[in-house]
């Protein structure tokens, strides 16, 4: 399909729109081509990221939230996003572009459910976050180690069993003991959870699905960054 139109002939605004279309349809090579074309036109890597990829993934997120897109389509979109991101990442570092934020995410100890958590990770990458995925069956020590190593803005925890979700509270208590809690936004998710549970264990928010996780993460990071330092 990419041969059908010559993107060099398109207006820049149209290419941004094309990226959104192609992300929506999960067309990785097409997204890569458009990203390259925009860079060729001297758009900054940061603008390509935010006006192109992130804006496109926003549409994917909204349609996922509304049930119009489902897991397979979102995964394809996330893969296309990732392909574009691979070109941008070194350039973003080079140009010292502002960071959207970093997320450390994992499924808590005793729980081996992987897929929902991976989906959140990919959607967060789609929103421009750097994502460190610790996998499944993650204990408090492993979370703490990753927090020291990656200095994330957000800690995301997932549990799909009513028997494993209390462990999220254990992790949060450990964060408090080590004086790490206040510097982090803690988001939790998983089928058996709800807002009341998140509040009870001292998380910042419960996110019902990946799209809401992204919305919440963006909102809370913005609030955190607007707070006066000190």
């Amino acid at each position, binding site marked *: *399909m990419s041969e059908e139109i010559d993107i060099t002939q398109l207006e820049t605004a149209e290419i941004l729109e094309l990226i959104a*279309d192609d992300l929506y349809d999960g067309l990785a090579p097409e997204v890569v081509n458009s990203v390259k074309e925009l860079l060729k036109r001297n758009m900054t890597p940061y603008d390509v990221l935010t006006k192109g990829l992130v804006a496109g993934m926003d549409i994917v997120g909204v349609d996922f939230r509304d049930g119009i897109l489902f897991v397979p389509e979102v995964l394809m979109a996330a893969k296309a996003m990732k392909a574009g991101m691979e070109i941008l990442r070194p350039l973003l570092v080079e140009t010292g572009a502002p960071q959207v934020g970093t997320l450390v995410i994992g499924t808590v100890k005793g729980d081996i459910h992987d897929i929902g958590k991976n989906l959140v990770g990919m959607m967060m990458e789609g929103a421009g976050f750097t994502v460190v995925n610790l996998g499944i069956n993650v204990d408090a020590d492993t979370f703490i180690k990753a927090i020291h190593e990656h200095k994330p803005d957000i800690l995301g925890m997932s549990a799909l069993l009513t028997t494993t979700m209390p462990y999220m509270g254990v992790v949060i208590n450990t964060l408090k003991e080590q004086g790490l809690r206040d510097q982090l936004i803690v988001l939790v998710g998983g089928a058996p959870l709800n807002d009341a549970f998140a509040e009870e264990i001292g998380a910042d928010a419960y996110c019902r699905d990946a799209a809401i996780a992204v919305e919440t993460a963006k909102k809370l990071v913005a609030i955190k960054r607007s707070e006066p330092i000190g």
Partner: protein
Amino acid sequence: MPSGRKGSVPRGANLLKAAQELGVELESICGGRQTCGKCQVIVEEGHFPKHGLTSRPDHLSAPTAREIEYSQENRLQGRRLACAAEVLGDVLISVPEESQARKQVIAKAASERTIEIEPAVRLVYVEMQPPDMSDARGDWERLQVALEEQWDLKGLSLDSSALTALQSNLRQGNFAVTAAVWQNREVLRLQPGYREGLYGLAVDIGSTTVVAHLCDLRTGAVLATEAAMNPQVRYGEDLMSRVSYANSEPQGLSRLNRGVIRTLNELAEKATAAAGLLPTDILDAVVVGNPVMHHIFLGLHPRELGGAPFTPAVSSALDLKASDLGLSFHPAARLHTLPLIAGHVGADNVAVLLAEAPDEQDEVMLIVDVGTNAEIVLGNRQRLLAASSPTGPAFEGAQITHGQRAAPGAIERVRIDPLSLEPRLKVIGYDEWIRPGASLPHEARATGICGSGIIEAVAELFLAGIILPDGLFNPAAAERSPRVRYQGRTGEYVLADESLTATGLPVVITQNDIRAIQLAKAALYAGSKLLMNHWGAQQVDRVILAGAFGSFISPYHAMVLGLIPDCDLNKVVAVGNAAGDGARFALLNRNLRQKAARLARWVEHVSTPLESSFQDEFVAALGLPHSRDPYPTLAPFLPQPSADGRTGRRNRIREKHQLV
């Protein structure tokens, strides 16, 4: 309350728990986490002299954020979620019909299969010389000699209850007794003279239903079959909520345990009464269940089964005394539990293997027990693999907008005309197919849709082209029928309009319902597919749908949905409660207990979520019937893929420039 229950609870008590404590059975699938919305209640407003109270909505705590969120997504119409409300003052609560937990419809016909009768307990008749002054030995020692001489039974021990009655029984029978001997090792019971009659109980403790077969251990005949709802349901519908309950409530385990023991005693009483016997006539029992049910029944804490690595306290078969567990059978009655395969694959699964004997077949069999936690076995005489797959409670009606359990009023079967897009329905408790516009008696009015109904509904929506292979409502269908309508940007299908329902609200299938079913069926299919990959099977020769739920599923619709892999439809069979059958086999033939122990060790357990390809298989299985794997059997029935091939849905820029 319509139940007439009344009582005082402490201020701040949770309404759901308070209702349960007062003996009002409210449906709760999520176990009180304000998620399933099944425990809706109505707060009556006003002064009620009959009850001597003034009931006001604000005598319950204000709705929580979660409840408000729930009410925005679902129509609560002024109702409250009992699990979200705290009692702050006098309230009069009405429980709407659909919120009541009711007795289920249970598939319980015991299958008639041939099996060699060789029970663990047998009767032997012994005659002894009366004692005299020249013989200083005790009666038991003299009986031991007689048993050895007449039956070649050496070194037997004697149950204490039989010892207590030994002398009177011997004399009453004029030194002739009938002894019930367990495993050629222990005398359980002595009866004066010659007696017949030897009975046992085979029990399958399911998470929802407990089934007991009373058997004649001499003839193998099933004398009575009784079933009851597992009383633990009130503490949480799915297994993990019950583990949580045991973890978080100090008396939790003992309540769960006592509940199921009481149910077993009640079932034993009913079954023996139906056969003109007494519970004390039961001398042997075999009990099976999934690992959590098995542990709770034995009084073992299920905590470790609640999380990885899911280590059971014990996985081998156990021989116990029934009275030690609080069962009021014969005081000396024995009880055998079949072994577990793994922390997720239980004795119920071993029983299914005994009943279906895939280890004796050349055909590659796939056995699927569909439930909240689906258990899957694949293989033949060469190799057997087992796994469990977390399908979630969608197939039991939870997470579905108008979902409910299989009880009277539930829509259980659905057909949709592909031309008119009009439905036909069957409702549990009413025999006729129902068409839109029909005038119906009260019992034919739908209260919701149960698991088999939702499976058929989604499959039929797909066959009729109302939903597309990716599960999305087809916007073109909305132009063809007012039943397909949009709430904002998402579609829904009106399965039964207000005139056909008992609630006065239409029963609809929403986009989110379809997504929930896609997730559940994909988990099940991915589990089966991983086992097929492990085994090296390209396809399966036979599919067995086990469990009560399995017998209500239409094999054709299960395949259209992609719940099971492609297979000759004539070779997809529902076998009902195969676990109960397997328990009965082990009750009637002690060699099968040995076989069960061998099988449990031989079957290879595959932990599907740890497989690297699980996510890939899961995602590919979300499509209808599947995004990748072929279904040649269904080829004549499936809708043709649309002409545009659906490559790309947002071609705005490309379309614009191609038009130029």
